[in-house]
């Protein structure tokens, strides 16, 4: 087991944002020292997703055409959305939606491991929050793949361990105002 108490996320890095018309896309890249096959399992199988992802899946995301219910974890109310896997080219490309977010994962062989890229559309005002949340999820994924799992950290667990700093760092990198969570009484235009 890894040491959850010792975990602190590193500085914000590996994220870009892109704007196409009104649509904002968050692009996250993470290099992992594990094979694409191993990373693919962690991205698609419910028992693996449960260890790191911000949602529960009630079926495999690894087969095109599969209909899977995704349930948010740690949100004030669990939100269940049904997704349909639209692309599953193991172990290279995976596409489905999470509510109104399109999720596109690319796995490229990189050295002895995998360069993982996630494209997801997300509203501008939430884009730094999303980058911060995925950053922590990817750290947890990295520990999981390395055999030293530290346990899923989403919602309140993420907020305890550096999410707010990452949120501010990504907001700065993206050139957007730091979102108003959790300070009270402030407003965005």
């Amino acid at each position, binding site marked *: 087991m890894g040491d959850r108490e010792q975990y602190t996320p590193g500085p914000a890095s590996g994220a870009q944002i892109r704007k196409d018309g009104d649509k904002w896309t968050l692009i996250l890249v993470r290099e992992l020292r594990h094979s694409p096959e191993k990373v693919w399992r962690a991205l698609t199988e419910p028992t693996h997703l449960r260890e790191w992802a*911000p*949602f529960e899946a009630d079926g495999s995301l690894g087969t095109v055409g599969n209909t899977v219910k995704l349930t*948010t974890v*740690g*949100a*004030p*109310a669990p*939100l*269940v*959305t049904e997704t349909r896997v639209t692309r599953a080219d193991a172990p290279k490309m995976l596409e489905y939606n*999470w*509510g*109104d*977010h399109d999720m596109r994962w690319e796995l490229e062989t990189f050295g002895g491991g995998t360069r993982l890229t996630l494209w997801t559309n*997300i*509203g501008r*005002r*939430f884009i730094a*929050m*999303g980058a911060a*949340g995925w950053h922590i999820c990817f750290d947890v994924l990295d520990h999981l793949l390395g055999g030293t799992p530290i346990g899923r950290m*989403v*919602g309140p667990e993420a907020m305890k361990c550096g999410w707010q700093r990452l949120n501010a760092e990504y907001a700065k990198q993206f050139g957007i105002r730091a*979102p*108003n*969570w959790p300070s*009270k*009484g402030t*407003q*965005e235009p």
Partner: protein
Amino acid sequence: MKIKMTSVYVDDQDKALRFYTEVLGFAKKTDFSQGPYRWLTVASPEEPDGTELQLALNNNPAAKAYQQALFQQSQPAAIFFTDNIKGDYQRIKGRGTEFTMSPTDVTGSTIAMLKDTCGNLIQLTQLARHSR
């Protein structure tokens, strides 16, 4: 314990935010998301740390059925107090809002009812003791 939060279901959170801020005049208080989940609240600028109103997405069948049943029976989903109901009526109506009841004297208060464009009736209430 304190009552600091209440909620209404809305069919579109972006549309609801525009209506509750730009038309009714409330201010956004908290807005964050976790994946597709969005926690969105507004508060009155007259009472920024007062009770918040959560604009909750009616994304489940029970929420939709409840919201529609209230609406069909002319029941308000929420009631806001004002000390100037005639002025608020003119202001909100002037922004294109449909009222199903103009300010009407009832026992102990004057009330009006408007459509929030997100599936709800909202009642405005001015208590008689607050009349100008």
